[in-house]
């Protein structure tokens, strides 16, 4: 008879976000070790990308971080544009920025709601999803898709913004500021929320750097690293926004940081709406008929800041219409690997809250 109880959380478990298996070794109710098994949602996306022409691969990136599809597409499309030398017009780039920020908001809202659910708080989840619904209505108007949008394409975007979309976004950003404060207050004024999160899931900055953690998790440990600021893509150098950091290193810090980043995202969207120029939304060199013949040579690595952190795409072409190799640096994979470090010595309930605070998407880990 061993001293430890082994508890299986996942693959089919209500509070693991997706299908992921945590094998938790418990000493009484204290976590001794966490063993993570991934691969239940492996769809071989990177290999499938080698079989298609460049333009057809975008949908596989939609389905990686399915909550943050725009940023996934953006990562791939910027890599391919660098490789093939097709440039997107200015208006398309502004549109991409707006859509990326909107989708970041949508993904954060899901994360916040699920974070509440993990603690047993039902109400914020529905309020978050009501807001996400508005974002998805905008996506439907622009692309026809709600979640897997397939909107950003090589050399531009699928459709131009019309007046209705711009008005919708303006109205959304006006209402959302107040709604965000409501959702924030639902959490932060609860004494039990503080009890559950204060000092839980501490991640030291050096550990975070060792594990290659990026995104809100890294900024929550006090390191101001944001790809949008440190290696600007699109026009992120032409808008004003701050990169918030938190020195608390625990769940509360990360929660407040995520809310602050959502405020910054709204700020970016507002500026983009003011600065968006007229002009073509699509590069004529990248028309659908021409995409069959687009060839890429050499290798590129492009990175974007997705919801979970630095999302990098490596594409290598061998002067044919299909990529020779596509590889993805997925932030959620790196982020989930620090869970054992953060959860050791805590209780099972804390492990659940930590997973909720990291907010991973399994589709991106397994690809």
């Amino acid at each position, binding site marked *: 008879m061993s001293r430890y109880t082994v508890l*299986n959380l996942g*693959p*089919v478990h209500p509070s693991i976000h997706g299908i992921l298996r945590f094998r938790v070794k418990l000493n*009484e109710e204290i976590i001794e070790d966490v063993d993570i098994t991934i691969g239940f949602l492996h769809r071989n996306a990177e290999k499938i990308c080698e079989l298609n022409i460049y333009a057809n691969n975008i949908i596989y990136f939609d389905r990686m971080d399915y909550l943050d599809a725009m940023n996934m597409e953006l990562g791939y499309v910027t890599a391919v544009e660098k490789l093939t030398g097709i440039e997107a017009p200015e208006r398309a780039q502004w549109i991409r920025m707006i859509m990326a920020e909107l989708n970041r908001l949508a993904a954060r809202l899901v994360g916040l709601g699920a974070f509440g659910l993990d603690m047993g708080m039902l109400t914020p989840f529905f309020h978050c999803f009501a807001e996400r619904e508005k974002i998805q209505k905008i996506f439907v108007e622009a692309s026809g898709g709600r979640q897997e949008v397939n909107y950003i394409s090589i050399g531009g975007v699928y459709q131009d913004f019309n007046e209705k979309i711009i008005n919708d976004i303006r109205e959304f950003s006006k209402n959302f500021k107040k709604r965000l404060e409501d959702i924030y207050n639902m959490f932060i004024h609860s004494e039990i929320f503080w009890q559950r999160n204060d000092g839980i899931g501490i991640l030291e900055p050096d550990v975070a750097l060792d594990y290659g953690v990026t995104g809100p998790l890294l900024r929550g440990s006090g390191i101001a690293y944001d790809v949008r600021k440190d290696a600007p893509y699109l026009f992120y150098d032409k808008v004003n926004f701050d990169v918030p950091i938190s020195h608390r290193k625990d769940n509360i810090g990360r929660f407040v940081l995520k809310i602050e980043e959502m405020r910054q995202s709204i700020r970016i969207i507002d500026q983009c709406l003011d600065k968006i120029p007229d002009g073509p939304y699509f590069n004529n060199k990248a028309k659908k008929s021409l995409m069959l013949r687009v060839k890429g040579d050499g290798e590129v690595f492009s990175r974007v800041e997705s919801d979970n952190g630095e999302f990098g795409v490596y594409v290598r072409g061998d002067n044919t219409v299909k990529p020779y190799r596509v590889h993805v640096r997925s932030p959620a994979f790196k982020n989930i690997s620090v869970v054992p470090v953060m959860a050791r010595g805590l*209780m099972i309930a804390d492990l659940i809250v930590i997973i909720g605070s990291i907010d991973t998407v399994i589709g991106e880990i397994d690809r």
Partner: protein
Amino acid sequence: MLTGYIALMITIILVGLSLYLLFKILPSISQNRYRPWKISLKRKDIMENLAIENNPPAKDDSYLHPFESGEVAKEYPAGNITVQYYVIVLLFVLFDIDMLLLLPWAFDFYSLGLFSFIETIIFIAMPLFAVYYAFRRGYMRWMR
């Protein structure tokens, strides 16, 4: 004196009957996994269904295993129970017997007066000291 408890007996009989109905007769006239959906009041069908409800044939073995989040359980819980729970239950037993002894006192509280009140406070302070001791020695601290 017994008349006061007639209602309780009636309830126990009624609830017992309704639960019997719930578990024996209702499932036996409705669907289950092994038969197509039908409600039948024929005696033969009810007897068959009752037999299934009491002792279902195990067609799919893994279906009947304890839930392990989608994995097949390799080992069953061996009975390692957190020490904290024992401490809590011990404290509870202490206090519960204490309360049992205090009920008659509370009933007669006014006529017993101040002296017995002070005695009772001292009497309660003793198990309270046990709680204090448990906290002080860290038996109630879960994370070490």
